């Protein structure tokens, strides 16, 4: 018997194993963490990827259906609507989070966010939190809109419930926005309007109810975004800082 498993174990080389693709999901995550923290390891992975790349020429090319480009194009336009035209132009200095990298997965994860249970919990929370200086929000069947605002990495930062009858928006923080110098400001970006409309400043750490003006049911399908602004809010009336979370407003 001279089968390999009778010999002493071969040393694993995680960089090579990652590049070849034999690692489990958890092992891949661990390798990716190490790539971020350990430059030598990351360079080893790239070395292997480049050395093995010639094999890719043996993979048969197959045309993807044209609809794939249409979807990519629509996603890009949607991202541009949120940040490109209105926000990037006004952004000053270097954004803390390099551009808006990675916004894309949000559009997909959003789809999974509106399970009935989650929405029911949202509405319950929105009712429990008393509006400040406004009549109590009542579960009387008046139309409500909800959004899950997620960061560029897909983590939910805020959930938002808009009570159209009482014209209030209740924001429930899920994950902190960490920025010592700036304050989060909420924006509504409607399909047919020229630019984002400020809905007011919010507090990162606690639930808050904001008074709204003239937000109609037609806002369903619009995008909400949170940008980081100087103390006191955007000086220009349009977002000037990095967008830290976005989400689509849907009827519930």
């Amino acid at each position: 018997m001279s089968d390999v498993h009778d010999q002493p174990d071969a040393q694993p080389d995680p960089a090579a194993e990652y590049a070849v693709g034999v690692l489990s999901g958890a092992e891949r995550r661990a390798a990716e963490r190490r790539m971020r923290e350990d430059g030598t390891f990351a360079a080893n992975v790239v070395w292997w990827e480049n050395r093995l790349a010639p094999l890719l020429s043996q993979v048969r090319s197959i045309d993807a259906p044209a609809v794939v480009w249409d979807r990519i194009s629509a996603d890009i336009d949607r991202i541009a609507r949120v940040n490109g035209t209105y926000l990037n132009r006004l952004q000053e200095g270097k954004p803390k989070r390099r551009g808006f990298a990675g916004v894309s997965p949000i559009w997909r994860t959003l789809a999974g966010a509106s399970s009935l249970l989650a929405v029911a919990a949202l509405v319950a929370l929105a009712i429990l939190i008393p509006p400040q200086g406004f009549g109590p929000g009542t579960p009387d069947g008046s139309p409500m809109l909800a959004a899950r605002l997620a960061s560029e990495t897909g983590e939910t930062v805020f959930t938002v419930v808009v009570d159209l009858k009482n014209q209030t928006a209740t924001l429930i923080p899920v994950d902190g926005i960490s920025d010592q110098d700036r304050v989060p400001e909420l924006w509504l970006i409607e399909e047919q309007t020229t630019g984002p409309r400020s809905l007011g400043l919010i507090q990162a750490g606690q639930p808050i109810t904001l008074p709204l003006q003239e937000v109609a049911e037609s806002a369903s399908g619009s995008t909400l975004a949170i940008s980081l602004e100087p103390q006191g809010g955007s000086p220009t009336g349009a977002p000037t800082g990095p967008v830290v979370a976005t989400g689509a407003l849907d009827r519930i």
Partner: protein
Amino acid sequence: MADRSSGEAEDARRHLVECLRHVAAGDKAALREVYDRTQAKLFGVALRILNDRREAEDVLQDVYLSVWMKAADFDANRASPITWLATIARNRAIDRVRQIGRRDEKDIDSALEVADDSPDAFAHLSAEDDRKRLDVCLDELDERTGNAIRTAFFSGKTYQELADKAEVPLGTMKSVIRRGLIKLKGCLSR
């Protein structure tokens, strides 16, 4: 002949590098150009791993959106553009297949099992000497090891899946591939 196609490959590479530079500056038409030139290869790579057209389409969509966001990260000194793109596609497809679990392989398209010998724009994905060196080094491995590494690379299967398919113990498959990778590294570093 080889020189001519190498020249064409070099032109294609330069063109893609230029396009990616424009993509980094927010030029959507440049992304379309990158897409048109590379989608078939990337779709083939993703489909080979996922064996599911819808999933491969979703991966492709994610890949080009990532390229749109991250084109500035591309460093032409570290990798050729097609290698960079195909590697993103491969990694996304592997992550996806780990997430959803592997589908029944009985109906895998037999065309996908076959290596592609037909020359396309990216037949010369990498510099000719890189290609030759990898061929030589893989050929230096015994047949079983070489095949295991090739299969692993093309299918994105885990050690466990490879062991199940080859009907050998997990430890055996790990040893075969790990030993092979050590030898391969030595050979490729020469």
